[in-house]
């Protein structure tokens, strides 16, 4: 997708919501899925189009965990830290990335809701379940195979 396509799509989303300030969160969701993250330039554009003060737009973008304000790393892991995963050893799984895969961007997630399959980590969008540190190392190495 070219930048022009992205801009057009975002414009269509805002138009569908009638450029209403109430739709800010919806618009930010769309902007992030189009551009990958919310750059300062993008936030300024949204503020202008929705006729909102930039402080309101930045305030909302920084409030919610799911909005990314910096480009994402090539590899992303989300370690579920819900109660079931925590008691089943999730903290050790987070350490695996620190020790073995330092270039991965690791986030802590607050419960994916697959507690029966604890502990779990989502690696590049793929859920890995019933993990041990050793199993996680194997799974990540498999994912990195071309």
């Amino acid at each position, binding site marked *: 997708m070219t930048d022009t396509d992205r801009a057009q799509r975002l414009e269509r989303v805002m138009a569908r919501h009638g450029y209403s300030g109430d739709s*800010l969160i919806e618009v930010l969701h769309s902007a992030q899925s189009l551009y990958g993250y919310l750059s300062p330039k993008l936030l300024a554009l949204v503020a202008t189009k929705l006729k909102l003060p930039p402080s309101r737009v930045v305030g909302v973008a920084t409030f*919610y965990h*799911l*909005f990314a304000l910096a480009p994402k790393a090539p590899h992303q892991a989300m370690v579920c830290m819900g109660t079931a995963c925590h008691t089943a050893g999730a903290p050790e799984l987070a350490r695996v990335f620190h020790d073995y895969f330092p270039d991965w961007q690791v986030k802590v*997630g607050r419960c*994916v809701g*697959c*507690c029966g*399959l*604890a502990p779990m980590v989502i690696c590049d969008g793929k859920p890995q379940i019933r993990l041990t540190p050793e199993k996680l190392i194997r799974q990540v190495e498999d994912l990195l195979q071309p």
Partner: protein
Amino acid sequence: MNIEELIETEQQERERQAGLRNRILCCSVAGCTAAAGSAAIRGSIEAAIQEQGLPGEVEVCGTGCLGLCGHAPCVRSANLNETYHDVTAADAPYLVRGDRSRFEGRTVRDTDAFYAGQCRVVLENAGRVDPERVLDYIAAGGYKGLLKVISEMTPFEVVEEIKKSGLRGRGGAGYPTGLKWELVARQESPVKYVICNADEGDPGAFMDRSVLEGDPHRVLEGMAIAAFAVGATQGYIYVRGESPLAVERVRTAIRQAEREGLLGNRVLDHNFQFRIDVRIGAGAYVCGEETALIASIEGQRGTPRPRPPYPPEKGLWGAPTLINNVETFANIAPIIRKGSAWYASMGTAASRGTKVYALAGRIAKPGLVEVPMGTPLRTILFDIAGGVPAGYAFKAAQTGGPAAGCIPAQHLDVPMEYESLQAIGSMIGSGGLIVVDNSVCMVDLARFFMEFCMDESCGKCIPCRAGTVQMHDTLDRIIKGRGSEADLDLLAELAGLMRATSLCGLGMAAPNPVMSTLRHFKDEYLAHIHEHRCLAGSCTPREEVALV
């Protein structure tokens, strides 16, 4: 679709399903699909049906949560009344053939304790209905409740019926649903809203997500009935951004319902208008609080505001607003269909009906179960879910996420209902039940929940913003062996302050796990303080000292 057409459709689809030799239903909620690959298994079953020349005789489809989430993926054979767990693609031909010997040791029959011990109202369609087919829902009696209120009842009668049922809000607080509806119905306003709170953020809770993914039409029908009762024309479902599958299922269901005339300008060809839009949360636990949720729908930071006025008076964009939780709405259609007396016959005097629990942790069958209110915890954990696996000892069950407390072994026979849990310093909360064994340190668990609340505090009011940090640091100090008994008094003081002065439920309830573990497991705190050791053996107190 008008009323006659709805009844005719129900008949036709029922007859079509009855004509099949078998229906194979693959659990298609997030745990089984995304994590354990039930979608691929569905494909293999489809292929096996073709290979065995049985298209039109055997059918495969998705369905709601079969409950055995710890042994995903699960598949149900409808005509054999059996559910199989830990299914693989290689099992497909056997499923199609109905070869039961293949599944020895992996079969749970409807007559087995796991299912027979339950009482399924909210989950009645799990294992019967494909969440992506509105016809399936209609064939199972769906939208009959909506039909009944539109064609036979006045809004006043609907509110009365819900009041008589004794249904209480399933989001955690347990406020009587009928009274809430009455408050909104009484307001004189040309615009009113109905909101479904599907921002299920408690760690360890997946009931609402499973209901939305497994039976979305049931929630839409409940919302439509509520809208009819209170006089609203617009509804919103606020779904957690972390549940993309739920968002997709709800959107599909809304599209189907609109196409069939079950939502829209003339619902069931009657003079009743109701539309539903989806709003996706962006990852903020506090948005489960109703005024924060309203702010979020309005496109603002999800911070709560002082109440009163409560949402039934001034809610979304200042209009009277009814907010109920997913499970509450899921109970509405059956209450209308089968009557309030039927619903009130389940449960206890103060807590009627059933409750869905999400079981996780050290338990033989983690998953989703639904039992009448007042069922003893022991029955749920040991009779239905198979108890704690061999080699481990039950220590406590943590109920309801970071807002609730723990239930230790001596209280295993407590009836699970709002008041009796409060009496022992816990609460039902939204319905998560996490079983912990002797290897889990309760002080560490308390710190875990406090860390969660500290992260998720929206920062608007000081008692919560600063109190969670202070409590967390105090717990951390105790765990690291640098605490004193005065710290326990400090915890109690902070807890009292936060409970009394926080702006919303997050701050008020944040101390609960601490106070509840302190009440039941004070010895663990004292061991950390006086002996610098962890009774569970999971913390390493004085680690800094050891390093020196």
